[in-house]
């Protein structure tokens, strides 16, 4: 629905636009779908000129069909699978996070969503040496916990020499960019900024960005939903479109976290943000605590697949979000390494 403007294509002058507008042809769609003979008679413009303009507009604005085989080749070369840092979660996600897709983690408070997000950021930054953008909207990002996870993951890899590990962990920390966005408009501008940077391909300090982690998307949208205003739904869909566009155009893996609410009729837990949001992520993982209530303290969590394009739903694995602990025998603070 692009408005006709002078200079949109050669041959489209300002007078032509004024005349067309007087005859209620305002946008490209109106122009292309109208009967040109009719228009040339009413506006007393040359038929040939109108046909030429239409050809240029069609070439400029229409989408071209792509061959399935070409698409497959392109996908094979551009898609990457990123490990999440936890082998059982990788198994659940069919060997990892796929770029070009939106993956969602949902769970009750305290179920470990932020821990899994931190683990993903640590694994991508340390293992693959790629940059990660972490959009934090809940204030739950704790850099010291991330550092712990990096230390635990670095211990697992044996190829690193002992002297390099501290430096590589600090470098890994520098590759993770954290933005605190507490409002949906701030989140949209942060995503827009990412898009601008990537499309300009500026060789800045960010480097190759492969993962965007958003914790959590429901915290910024939930205050807008509900009631009689459909405003919240529009913003939510705008955000969904931004995320999917980012994932597809720039081959990023987008991870979002969502809350769960209680269904008022059945009393069961269901993901927040409703049915409209449920179509946005291609993969949905539900995290649950193994203990029944808060009286039993445990670090074991179960992750089950609620929606996936590749694996059967209902698959369940066990995670231990405490396994990246560094059991320090003495209270050594991480500042010793700096």
């Amino acid at each position: 629905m692009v408005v006709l403007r002078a200079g949109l294509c050669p041959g489209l002058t300002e007078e032509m636009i004024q005349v067309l507008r007087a005859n209620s042809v305002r946008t490209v769609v109106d122009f292309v779908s109208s009967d040109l003979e009719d228009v040339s008679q009413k506006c007393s413009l040359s038929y040939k000129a109108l046909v030429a303009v239409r050809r240029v507009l069609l070439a400029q604005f229409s989408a071209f069909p792509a061959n399935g085989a070409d698409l497959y080749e392109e996908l094979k070369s551009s898609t990457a699978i990123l490990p999440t840092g936890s082998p059982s979660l990788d198994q659940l996600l069919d060997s990892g996070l796929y770029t070009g897709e939106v993956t969602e983690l949902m769970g009750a408070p305290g179920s470990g969503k932020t821990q899994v997000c931190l683990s993903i950021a640590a694994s991508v930054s340390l293992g693959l040496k790629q940059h990660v953008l972490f959009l934090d909207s809940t204030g739950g990002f704790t850099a010291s916990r991330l550092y712990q996870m990096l230390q635990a993951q670095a211990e697992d890899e044996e190829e690193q020499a002992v002297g390099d590990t501290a430096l590589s962990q600090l470098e890994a920390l520098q590759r993770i960019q954290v933005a605190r966005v507490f409002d949906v408009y701030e989140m949209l501008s942060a995503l827009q900024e990412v898009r601008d940077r990537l499309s300009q391909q500026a060789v800045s300090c960010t480097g190759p960005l492969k993962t965007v982690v958003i914790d959590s998307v429901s915290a910024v949208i939930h205050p807008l939903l509900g009631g009689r205003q459909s405003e919240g739904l529009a913003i939510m869909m705008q955000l969904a479109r931004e995320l999917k566009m980012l994932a597809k155009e720039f081959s990023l893996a987008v991870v979002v976290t969502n809350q769960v609410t209680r269904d008022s009729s059945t009393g069961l837990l269901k993901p927040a943000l409703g049915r409209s949001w449920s179509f946005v992520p291609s993969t949905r993982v539900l995290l649950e605590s193994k203990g029944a209530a808060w009286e039993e303290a445990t670090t074991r969590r179960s992750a089950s697949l609620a929606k996936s394009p590749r694996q059967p739903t209902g698959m369940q694995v066990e995670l231990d979000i405490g396994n990246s602990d560094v059991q320090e025998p003495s209270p050594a603070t991480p500042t010793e390494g700096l």
Partner: protein
Amino acid sequence: MQRAVGSLPLGPALRARLAAAGFQTAQELLDTGPCGLSREIGISKEEALEALQVVRQECSGDAARTAGGAGTTRKCTALELLEEEQAQGFIITFCSALDNILGGGVQLTKITEVCGAPGVGKTQLCMQLAVDVQIPECFGGVCGEAVFIDTEGSFMVDRVADIAAACVQHCRLIAEAHQEEDHQKALETFSLESILSHIYYFRCRDYIELLAQVYLLPDFLSEHSKVRLVVIDGIAFPFRHDFEDLSLRTRLLNGLAQQLIIIANDHKSAVVLTNQMTTRIGQSQSTLVPALGESWGHAATVRLIFHWDKSQRLATLYKSPSQKESTIPYTITPHGFRDVQPPAVTQNTESTEMNPRKRPRREEEK
């Protein structure tokens, strides 16, 4: 500059008109200018001017951030955050077991929620924290002021005076033991009167007053920049009774939570909320769960649940981004919130059954 029109903070009616007129990106809006805009979508020139100002602000914010300019308010690398966190102080609670499971004390820039049955000690902890936040830095505190928002009317000034007197006494003992210059100087300003005068007390009687107070708090905090603690004692009380529309309640609570996170982050202060408990009746048994529903559970970053075990008070860390779940006992003495003293054992050999992660940020002088 290619920001889609739908993602700009404009009113819904205006947005609908822009979409109908065929505008897609912010750049097109800026190119049209206010006169052209008002002509095309049929709004007055002043409204068009206002809308363009909003768009310009958003886009210039974007451009500044892309160029790495000074518009980056809340964006940094994880390494910088780590350094910031390590330099940050904690608000100690005078109960070393609780401080240990919290990783050093109540953290600044985070929302901590304390849930518990009536009479278990939530308001006592709040009053203790309002005093502890003012401990001078040489004694291990953050030397800040406190804002106390009371909705239940349970704030007792004489109790706070007792707690403050015990705290001053404690610091005096430390100063005598260490005999250092800055300890003596700090003690001169750290007295009962100064403690009480730096606790700003607000009384809110219903949810509208509470919401208004929280939304007006940023202005108050920018005048009183030394505030490091905001306590809301009883966030459940105004929202639980007399609220017919539950979806409105959820929306208000979520908006409140986001506003509190913004306050905690921008002013580097800790936010402590107290919540009530409610009974959830399952198939075979009933459990006590924190009130205000599931969606409220996501608002707080750290969640502590206080409960009874026969006659012993216990505190459980239920949700935290960096610490393990664990349970410790505590007690409330005439001096305030304290550890449980094991009988006939000195303080240094205190040990708890669970495995709290001991990561003191600096020497705890106890």
